[in-house]
């Protein structure tokens, strides 16, 4: 007999539990801050101010969130197919190559709004290509995708170092990066949106790829829950045996799922490369591929959860930089500890508070068994 559990209302499941997890993560992080002799309240104030204080800070927070939405969606799509894509980092990195190749070829010829769709295709194609080899090895040879995607991160890093120090570097330049993109290779900023609200933003990297990220989140929702392919991906993810029974080809689903996942990770590159730096640089991904795993975990692999989770990590990145700047005894590593705690509580210990919360809800619910039992006993 299966054990029936009290079902939590949706708002508790998707709102309260993540909130409790984040609060506890911050509380423990506060203890760490206390341990190095600083005031947790002060640190938290800097974090919030750094992330939301002025229009500019909000723009930075959303700029980071943009990257995390892409990588979070990439991990989520793979999750739905029962695959753990740890290679978002490498796929995003190589996606940057796709962006750069398109832009370097066309930025003098076409305006940005022609180059943007082409760059999207380039980024998605290269990201998908980088996911294809691990996917093929998983589908055909059974090589575990966690191992192969991790290794492909290293290959991607080496490949990009090679390309940026040789063929992509302008002749005579000392730095390992491409030439700066012309106007046709620069995405418009979204600063004007903040102007509408009266918050002046002098310069921020927030650009229209943020809107692309929101569109991508919507399309992922359509894909997973409203298409035949998404149905097949979910069937394969929940139960490979049921997929086999239903005549869903495992090889095809593994390949297609990973190609979509890789394409989403690759599109992350649009944000820093075409939207901000306007050139392809070494290590521009800076861990966003890995943050995507935490974002997908926290967002329950659902676009509606991934967007707020990505913004939370945007807050940690942007506000964390502020803490490190304002409180010298808290180093950058400290911020990583705080991020790690959020991942730990929100991801790995996701179910820690669930049983007690369920018990609580069961005891206050009017249909609770205890009350009914007492009634019967009295009768």
């Amino acid at each position, binding site marked *: *007999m*299966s*054990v*029936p*559990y*009290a*079902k939590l209302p949706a708002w508790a499941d998707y709102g309260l539990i993540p909130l409790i997890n984040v609060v506890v993560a911050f509380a423990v992080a506060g203890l760490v801050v206390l341990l190095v002799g600083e005031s947790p309240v002060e640190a938290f104030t800097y974090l919030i101010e750094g992330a939301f204080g002025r229009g500019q800070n909000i723009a930075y927070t959303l700029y980071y969130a943009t990257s995390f939405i892409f990588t979070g969606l990439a991990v989520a799509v793979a999750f739905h197919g029962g695959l753990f894509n740890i290679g978002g980092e490498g796929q995003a990195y190589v996606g940057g190559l796709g962006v750069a190749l398109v832009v370097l070829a066309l930025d003098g010829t076409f305006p940005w709004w022609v180059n943007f769709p082409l760059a999207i295709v380039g980024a998605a194609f290269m990201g998908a290509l980088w996911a294809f080899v691990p996917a093929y090895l998983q589908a055909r040879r059974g090589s575990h995708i966690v191992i192969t995607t991790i290794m492909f991160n290293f290959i991607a890093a080496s490949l990009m170092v090679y390309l940026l120090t040789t063929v992509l570097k302008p002749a005579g330049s000392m730095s390992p990066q491409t030439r700066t993109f012309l106007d046709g290779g620069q995405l418009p900023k979204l600063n004007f949106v903040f102007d509408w609200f009266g918050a002046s933003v002098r310069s921020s990297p927030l650009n229209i790829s943020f809107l692309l990220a929101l569109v991508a989140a919507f399309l992922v929702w*359509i894909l997973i829950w*409203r*298409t*035949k*392919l998404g*149905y*097949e991906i*979910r*069937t394969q993810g*929940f*139960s490979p*045996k*049921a997929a*086999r*029974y*239903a*005549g*869903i080809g495992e090889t095809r689903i593994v390949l297609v799922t990973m190609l979509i996942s890789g394409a989403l990770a690759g599109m992350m590159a649009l944000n820093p490369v075409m939207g901000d730096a306007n050139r392809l640089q070494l290590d521009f991904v800076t861990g966003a591929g890995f943050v995507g795993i935490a974002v997908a975990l926290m967002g329950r692999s659902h676009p509606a959860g991934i967007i707020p989770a990505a913004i939370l990590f945007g807050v940690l990145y942007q506000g964390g930089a502020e803490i490190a700047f304002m409180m010298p005894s808290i180093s950058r590593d400290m911020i990583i500890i705080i991020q790690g705690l959020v991942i730990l509580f929100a991801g790995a210990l996701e179910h820690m508070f669930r049983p007690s919360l*369920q018990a609580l*809800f*069961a005891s206050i*619910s009017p*249909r*609770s*068994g*205890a009350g*009914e*039992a*007492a009634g*019967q*006993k009295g009768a």
Partner: protein
Amino acid sequence: MSEAAIELVGINKSFGPVHANKNIDLNIKAGTIHGIVGENGAGKSTLMSILYGFYQADSGEIHVAGKPVAITSSNHAIALGIGMVHQHFMLVQNFTVLENIILGAEREALLSSSISKARSELKRLEKEYGLDVDPDSIIEDLPVGLQQRVEILKALYRGADILILDEPTGVLTPAEADHLFRILAQLRAEGKTVVLITHKLREIMAITDNVSVMRQGQIVATRKTAETTVEELAELMVGRRVLLHVEKGDARAGEVKLSVRNLTVVDSRGVKVVDDVSFDVRGGEIVGIAGVAGNGQSQLLETISGIRPAVSGTVMLDGRPIDVTGAADPGELRDRGLAHVPEDRHYVGLVLPFEEYENSILGYHDRPEYLNGPFLNIEAIRADAKKKISQYDIRPGNERLKTANFSGGNQQKIVLAREMEKDPGVLVIGQPTRGVDVGAIEFIHKRLIDMRDQGRAVLLVSVELDEIRSLSDRILVMFDGRVVGERSGEATEGELGLLMAGIDGKEAAE
């Protein structure tokens, strides 16, 4: 010894809004065999888990041997002399019998003294209760009947006076079940108390002294077994009158729909699990495949339905071959009119985290009526699911509910509705009523007979001999991967039981 071995007073247990046990009063007399029957979800397992310390009751008292106790863990239950034999054995497969028996009861850092002590104790237990097992054989080499005996020995070794057996005969041949009952009778004669949980009413009648019936979390009746009948118990279980016997007319077998020739299947370890099997199924007949679980029936079913490749042999569907040795595609077979209700509905036939309507198209999800181009036609799928829910009386009638939240019987109806609704020419069905409550069994059986009467071919695999006998027009018996005999639907249980144990089979092969 006091009269009651266990007395439960006013036991209540809820899981959130689900009231699994309501005011349970139960008196189990020492030195008797007490049966507890009820449908799935009636609360039997919860009650026994409370007795065994897995759960704590929300309220109520437990008395063991007259003294009130609070059982907080299974170790505590063992200390009180309560032993449990689980439905799924809790044995370490690559340990010996002896190692399994002392597992958790080893006392010193070095095993040798525990082992020698256990060996002599085991000898005594074997002699006393007729529980012969070689203490040095490895568990995975033993047939299930013997593995179960090891479970019983484990409980006795720990000094159990009260033995709880949860659905003990599900995996046994009729002969093995008889042997188990002789052991239980021996235990009773030695003054032990046995609690037997089952849904098989005939076993209750055969072996128990008293029987309690559970329905919806309550004990609705306790009877002396000698003073009740199968019909009365069934009615108490379901809460209404039940037809225990399937009414069916004579089969009008038509032409051959499914033809299997020399089919051989090898599993991942290289063992021949289906060995040179040949048979036909005609339209308008139900062919039953009997056998103890694990004799190749499951693999046969999977191969015919295109899930598992065969190494040799042919299968013809409506006179056209199925590529069983290569890439048979279950989706294509469905298009050709072969529907499959798999044995394992939890992981194969259904995706439990899906909402009900999503499962109502599994395998048929590429049919144009459910699609708008690449998109699912959610409206159409839900409307279709609603229709099936009312036709098959699936409860609760909510197509947006998670499939995991339906009872076993209703989950099975979801699968049946899906597979039968496309009007297939051939239906292969495995364990149609495993874990399904009595009311739903009646419904499912009637549907299968209806299909037959409409001229469809039905291939039925079941480990429930009663089910095979009451539904089948012809019965094939599988043993060790081979079909060892064919009998008419009127074959006796004894006759089939011998075949299932492979006794007559060796002669047939020679």
